[in-house]
């Protein structure tokens, strides 16, 4: 009886095993990349909105404070989306005939709300609270990115759990003084640009972060990484 298999089948078999390992590994890699890609989490994707509102123009150009529109950010879980009335406070006076603003005027006339597309959207099983983060010295920019440089709004971070935990596990790397929370141009302390707080000049973020953790009574890492912190 002759050989059933040609010698080359040995090579093919080995190659198949290696290919299978690589293939399965590759599949997992692809899935992991998919999960982190803007396709899934919309990171960096500018959204179409009924009115092409430019944060860059309003914040950087005109110097409007975040809280002028997002009024409840310091007191509530929800930062607040401004009612049409807030837009009309100014736009009843300026750019009153701009065609771009017609949906705003129409909303104000008819009493029907503008329907914006939500940019930073957490899953419904996550109970995030803006006010407590603001209060503990987490800057707007730390999560929302350089909003003052966004002509159209996009989501800066993945908003995935690993990203949340990245800060919850080491808050000292991110905290800033409360007064600086809304400052879009704030930069973390370094040897060249110290941050002065309570009469002390901090030259490293870790020093400042650890000082602020105490000052603002930030709970322990164990506390703020327990499940009920965000899920309930």
């Amino acid at each position, binding site marked *: 009886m002759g050989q059933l298999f040609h010698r080359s089948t040995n090579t093919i078999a080995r190659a198949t095993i290696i290919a299978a390992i690589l293939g399965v590994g590759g599949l997992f890699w692809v899935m992991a990349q998919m999960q982190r890609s803007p396709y899934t989490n919309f990171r960096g994707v500018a959204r179409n909105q009924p009115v092409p509102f430019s944060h860059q123009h309003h914040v950087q150009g005109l110097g409007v404070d975040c809280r002028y529109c997002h009024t409840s950010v310091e007191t*509530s*879980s929800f930062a607040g989306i401004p009612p049409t*009335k807030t837009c009309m406070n100014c736009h009843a006076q300026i750019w009153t005939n701009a065609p771009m603003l017609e949906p705003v005027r129409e909303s104000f006339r008819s009493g029907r709300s503008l329907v914006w597309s*939500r940019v930073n*959207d957490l899953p419904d099983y996550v109970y995030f*609270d803006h*006010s407590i983060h603001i209060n503990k010295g987490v800057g707007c920019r730390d999560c929302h990115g350089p909003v003052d440089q966004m002509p159209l709004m996009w989501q800066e971070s993945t908003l995935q759990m690993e990203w949340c935990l990245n800060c919850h596990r080491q808050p000292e790397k991110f905290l800033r003084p409360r007064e600086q929370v809304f400052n879009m141009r704030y930069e973390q302390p370094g040897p060249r640009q110290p941050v002065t707080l309570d009469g002390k000049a901090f030259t490293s973020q870790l020093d400042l972060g650890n000082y602020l953790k105490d000052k603002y009574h930030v709970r*322990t890492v164990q506390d703020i990484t327990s499940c*009920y912190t965000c*899920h309930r």
Partner: protein
Amino acid sequence: MESQVNREGPSQPERREQERVSAEAVCPTKKELLYQISGTASGKKQLTRYDFEAALAALDSGDAPEYWRSLEELAGTKEFQEQLHREFPKGASEWLDPVSRRGFLKLMGASVALAGLTGCIRQPLEPIVPYVRQPENQVLGKPMFYATAMTLSGYGRPLLVRSNEGRPSKIEGNPEHPVSMGGSDIFSQASVLDLYDPDRLQTMIYEGEIRTWPSFLGGVRGQIAAQQAVQGAGLRILTETVASPTLAAQIRGVLQRFPGAKWYQWDPVNRDNVRAGAQMAFGQFVHTQYRLTDADVIVSLDANFLSPEFPGFTKYAREFSSRRRPETNPAARPFTTANYTALPDRPINRFYSIESTPTNTGAKADHHIPVRFSDVEKYARILASAVGVNAGGGNANSDLDGKVLAAAVKDLQAHRGTSVVIAGEQQPPIVHALAHAMNEALGNVGKTVFYTEPVEANPTDQMAGLKELVSDMWVGKVDMIVITGANPVYDAPVDLNFVGALQKVPLRIYHGTHGNETAANCSWVVNGTHYLEEWSDVRSIDGSVSIVQPLIAPLYGGKSAHELLNAFGAQPELSGYETVRGYWQSQIKGVDFESWWQKSVHDGFVANSAYAPLNLRVKMTSFAPPAQTAAGNTGGSVELIFRPDPCVYDGRFANNAWLQELHKPMTKVVWDNPLMVSPNTAARLDLEQQDVVEIRNAGQKVEAAVWIQPGHPDDSVTMFLGYGRQRAGRAGTGMGFNAYQIRQSTELNSVHGVKLNKTGRTYPLITTQGFQSMVGRHLVREATLEGFRKDPLFATRVEKEPDPAETLYPVYEYTGYAWGMAIDQNACVGCNACVIACQSENNVPVVGKMEVARGRHMHWLRVDTYYKGGLANPQVYFQPVPCMHCETAPCELVCPVAATVHGTEGLNEMIYNRCVGTRYCSNNCPYKVRRFNFLLFQDWNMPQYKMMRNPDVTVRSRGVMEKCTYCIQRIQHGRMDAEKKDQLIPDGSVQTACQQACPSDAIVFGNINDKNSRVVKLKENPRNYGLLADLNTRPRTTYLAVVTNPSPDLPEAEKSEHA
């Protein structure tokens, strides 16, 4: 009715079919399915004669457990044994439904979805919709609270309602109101579900066609003008008991305009006997209030004052429980024997209950005498004669009853001025008169008993009024009837044939929230507003006025009763707001009205509007009994008692699925009204559990399913009203048996000599009593006051609690907050308010009768009822059981995906989005407090329910385990509020939903690391013990043992002989 809609709810045509089926018949498919569950050919899952005898034998021989929950447990039936060994009752984890094409497609769909790796989906894009003009004070994401009040049978229940972005979502008691003091009850807690009930009337209807309010006004204008011509001789107004001063003034205004018109009130569970009793004693209608904080001895003559149906329940429950704490000083620390053994300033009260139906009130009694309804009068006379009222006296039915009565008399006489006698609402007028006379003879008036003006706006004899109305209708005197709120077609006494009489009226206008039986027989149907949608006013039991303010605009454009009545006045378009405000503007003089109004609406009540006590003397001097005495019941005939159902009341809450699925305090039956029969009578009449009997009374008959209830008096049966609705809605229609079918106008509360005939059929009564049993452990611990004084630590001696060091786990130091709960079983009155509060706060779904039968009910908090002693007169104990949040939780170790883990504050955390539904945790939980979503029990589609839910709590989906979280959302909010102020969470600022609802202050939650917190003080109480603590689970929820205060004249031995 969240689940039935989705799951086993009949389809639209089926439902219509079902509505046509007569009230006592149950959809046959449902029945068959239930029989399938029980798993035997005959469809019987019940206590047989053999088992019953076994139960008695067990009691005799002393083999029975000291505390037992059901007759099945006593008898040790095979079914009970089997259930014990199962994690869930048989059928819970199996797929028993017949496979339908729809079900098959659903399963296939689910499989495909699973195959698609559900974890890796993209987030759907969501819109965000701001206001155009944001209301002032509205902070999105922060709930607002508004004071208002709910009206039930002529009394207001002051409330504080949470509104999330304009949607009322949770009802609480008004903590500033002296009647509520923050406590609430099942009816007000569940009323938020009524608001969002999808079965509510959504339009106005004329002869089956949709109409509008202007077309109604136009349509009846002609008839109103015609009535004007005849002075309103043909106009009749039928309302519920009116408690609103404004509405009463409006109706009086209409009567002035139409002098020939008449106004009647009808509530099927009315207070005619209370009024007649007051009339008898004082010659005038009065309202009686009690101050139980000052009562050392309480005697109840069939009064169910610790049950939510009783007006002023929240006040009485709190006052009663405040006197059930045996410690000298519950706050005393550190614990020393001296602190707890000296006589307290306000000693624990002693409560004697003479009762014809076992209720949760009687369960709290130190001495409980079950007697037939008709014998309560005799016992009242015995008591009355002994305390110096000329009442004829008599002999008790047994020696033991006589001894208990003698002890009660001795106590009453020893506590002149600090005792109270309370007569039951349903008892005949003479019992009320006797109670008034006794309270006067004992000097209690002005101390524990107060008389005030009647709280209801127009006290009348409602039964007489209804009779007059019906006879007027029969002879054609009535051209136009306006029925608002009441549902007489369903609940009027059957001998009046209300529905027949109603057909004689040419123009019938119905106004209400639901298209009920009466609406179906009216030509005009005006959809009414829920109390959370309308402006109104009401008086609470102390007489103080609450302004009812709306929390939401009418969902379906309904009209309030005020607006309806305006149609008969000069200004038909006047709004409810203008009407109520206008009325008070005319009443309030001498103050700035605007600020008075603002303050009254804001506070939820008008300051200083409570009635001042009246100084009255009992005018009646002799209470000698009539010559003839009630004939004894012999043979097959028994006495039948009608009672409002503990959950659906008189039937008005029949479509409220929360209340339907709430276990009733004594039987733990859900979704039905069992016919309560005593064990002896059941044996005499050869009845077994769940037998269907036919009850005949005065030519009418109704069927009912037998429930053998320990502690029920013999030769008497209790049937609960409110079931067998034909047009309640998807939850209530066709459930249970309609007791109104045999209720006669002459015998509204009890009937002598009815016949019970066995039909040979059985009907599945579903009870949760057998589920989640922790049998054979020392769960309830009890001592008498004397025993407690001798050994204050009695509760801790029953089981050995292991040393905290005895553990394999590393010991965790809780340095920050450590949450814990203490439940005082002595204070708990078993009213179930906590269960509904939890359901409302935590978005707990309803599963439906069939699913409960399979053990798939979802309540996070249950109230277990334990019995001790013989079947004739057992002692009853209530034990609310939430998650224990064990420090060494057995559930956590067995979860393969770490979906249930321990938090740093000692909470046993359940993470839904991680749970894959293995149910190992539930299997390993010794307390059986975990609930699994076997099916998609939440209705994810009904838009109304979306508005109702608490946005701070996840709405759980199918395949997920859930359980009590200690209201983590409230802890987190409390924490953030405190941290923003750089403070620690102050004690008492975070209340769990159950704690907040509890009218008797039995549940206390707090930080056990804060040595000054209330919960720590309770946990340091010697009565404190942990459930199953010998397992070294170290539960954070602990219990305070029961301490009873029996009379020293009635030793324990005699008490058990009573069995």
